[in-house]
């Protein structure tokens, strides 16, 4: 059963059919999926959702596929953890971590969007998928398209670190390392996407792909006992995730699955790449593109496609935004590991670091419920913390050496 009416332009509202389209041909605004909520309301109840398998497709009427889902059947429904140690460290009453660092199969929230993108790409009849990525998206597209038996092309800048290449190459995609700077790689991929009849997940499949992010929000609401938190802090790269979490809350309200929510959402970015947070702080309706310079590579998007919508979401919700230095990112990664046992990537350090600042400066009250969005795994970005976590104590293989070097510490 399909509950999708079609696509519509986010700027001018013009309707479009359910096709692999992504930009309004009149105003060049982005297209998004338009649902039949009256129909969804008839079938999607708390009971119906609760009875389904614990994966991201338990909210399938709110996802943009027409047939049965075919990908990501073991993805989603990651833990929502009550972070009691972190509560003490930050002096707050009720804090949760939504932990996609353990997402199946590639340890980041990109597994959600790629699952939806591939299911939709197959419905459209594509046999080849593609993306441009420096990390998590490449891992997930390479992995899930291998499972699906689709041909796969992944584009990366030629100077990407070896560790990031291995996590993609293991799935045997055609991995194309483009010699050129970021802008040149970006432009080439736009041209490839317009010339070849492939499902480029974050270009011509983007309206469908992006909807997968909503499942991160639905799960928070369900796992909190069908209610919304007062505050959610979200990492921002292209800006899509924060808008989709916001949309997930509005949709659950509209369907009567939760009561009227008073949630405020906050954008978190690295100080070295903060176009969205800057727009929020300056109350600007235009995003000024920047050249990224930060260790948080997975958030290093200087010209965010959904930046203006991300900034508007934070503002309209009554929330805001905060940016953090590279040192603050590392300290937050260590804090999360040493309090809650979660080793997150640099993006997680950005989010917790920003949450900490928002709490310290009083923008997030200490006595209200807070969710910190952790979207990726630290094992992928070990170089960010390698020199900042001490070293092992080296000893000889005898008790005297142990007691000399260890017990005295």
């Amino acid at each position, binding site marked *: 059963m399909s509950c999708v009416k079609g696509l519509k332009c986010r700027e001018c509202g013009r309707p479009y059919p359910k096709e692999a389209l992504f*930009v309004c041909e009149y105003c*060049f605004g982005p297209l998004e999926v338009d649902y039949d909520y009256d129909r969804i309301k008839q079938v999607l109840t708390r009971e119906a959702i609760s009875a389904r398998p614990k994966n991201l497709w338990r909210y399938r009427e709110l996802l943009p596929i027409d047939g049965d889902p075919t990908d990501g059947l073991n993805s989603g429904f990651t833990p929502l953890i009550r972070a009691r140690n972190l509560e003490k460290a930050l002096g707050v009453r009720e804090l949760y971590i939504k932990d996609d660092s353990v997402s199946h199969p590639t340890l980041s929230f990109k597994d959600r969007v790629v699952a939806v993108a591939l299911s939709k790409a197959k419905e459209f009849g594509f046999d080849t998928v593609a993306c441009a*990525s*420096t990390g998590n998206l490449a891992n997930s597209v390479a992995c899930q398209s291998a499972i699906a038996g689709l041909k796969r092309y992944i584009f990366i800048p030629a100077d990407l670190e070896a560790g990031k290449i291995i996590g993609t190459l293991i799935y045997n995609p055609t991995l194309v390392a483009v010699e050129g700077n*970021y802008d040149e*790689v*970006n432009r080439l991929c736009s041209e490839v996407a317009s010339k070849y009849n492939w499902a480029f997940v974050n270009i011509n499949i983007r309206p469908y792909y992006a909807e997968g992010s909503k499942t991160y929000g639905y799960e928070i609401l369900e796992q909190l006992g069908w209610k919304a938190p007062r505050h959610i802090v979200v990492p921002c790269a292209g800006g899509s995730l924060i808008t989709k979490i916001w949309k997930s809350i509005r949709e659950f309200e509209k369907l009567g699955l939760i009561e009227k929510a008073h949630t405020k959402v906050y954008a978190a970015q690295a100080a070295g790449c903060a176009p969205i947070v800057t727009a929020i702080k300056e109350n600007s309706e235009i995003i000024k593109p920047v050249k990224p310079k930060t260790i948080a590579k997975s958030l290093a*998007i200087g010209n965010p*496609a959904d930046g203006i919508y991300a900034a508007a979401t934070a503002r309209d919700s009554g929330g805001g935004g905060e940016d953090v230095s590279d040192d603050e990112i590392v300290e937050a990664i260590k804090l999360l590991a040493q309090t809650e046992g979660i080793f997150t990537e640099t993006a997680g350090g950005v989010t917790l670091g920003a949450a900490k600042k928002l709490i310290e400066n009083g923008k997030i009250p200490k006595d209200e419920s807070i969710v910190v969005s952790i979207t990726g795994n630290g094992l992928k970005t070990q170089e960010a913390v390698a020199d900042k976590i001490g070293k092992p104590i080296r000893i000889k293989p005898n008790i005297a050496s142990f007691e000399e070097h260890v017990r005295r510490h």
Partner: protein
Amino acid sequence: MAKRLIKLTFPKDLIKKPITFQMAKKFDVMPNIRRAKITEEIGEIMLELEGADQNLDKGVAYLKKEGVIVEPIVGDIIE
């Protein structure tokens, strides 16, 4: 004739200069503006440029040289 969909961002000091018009005239490129926004601090235009391929390259290079930020309409897609 080729077409390119691009977003131009104008820093404050360029807002009052007719750079898009000058580019169009100088390189025989036809701009078709679809959406634009301006504040006291910054301006942006979403537009289609149509012209010979080499003229489009020259026109975009001219805009960048003048200080305009030129980006594909889809934003950064390397995630």
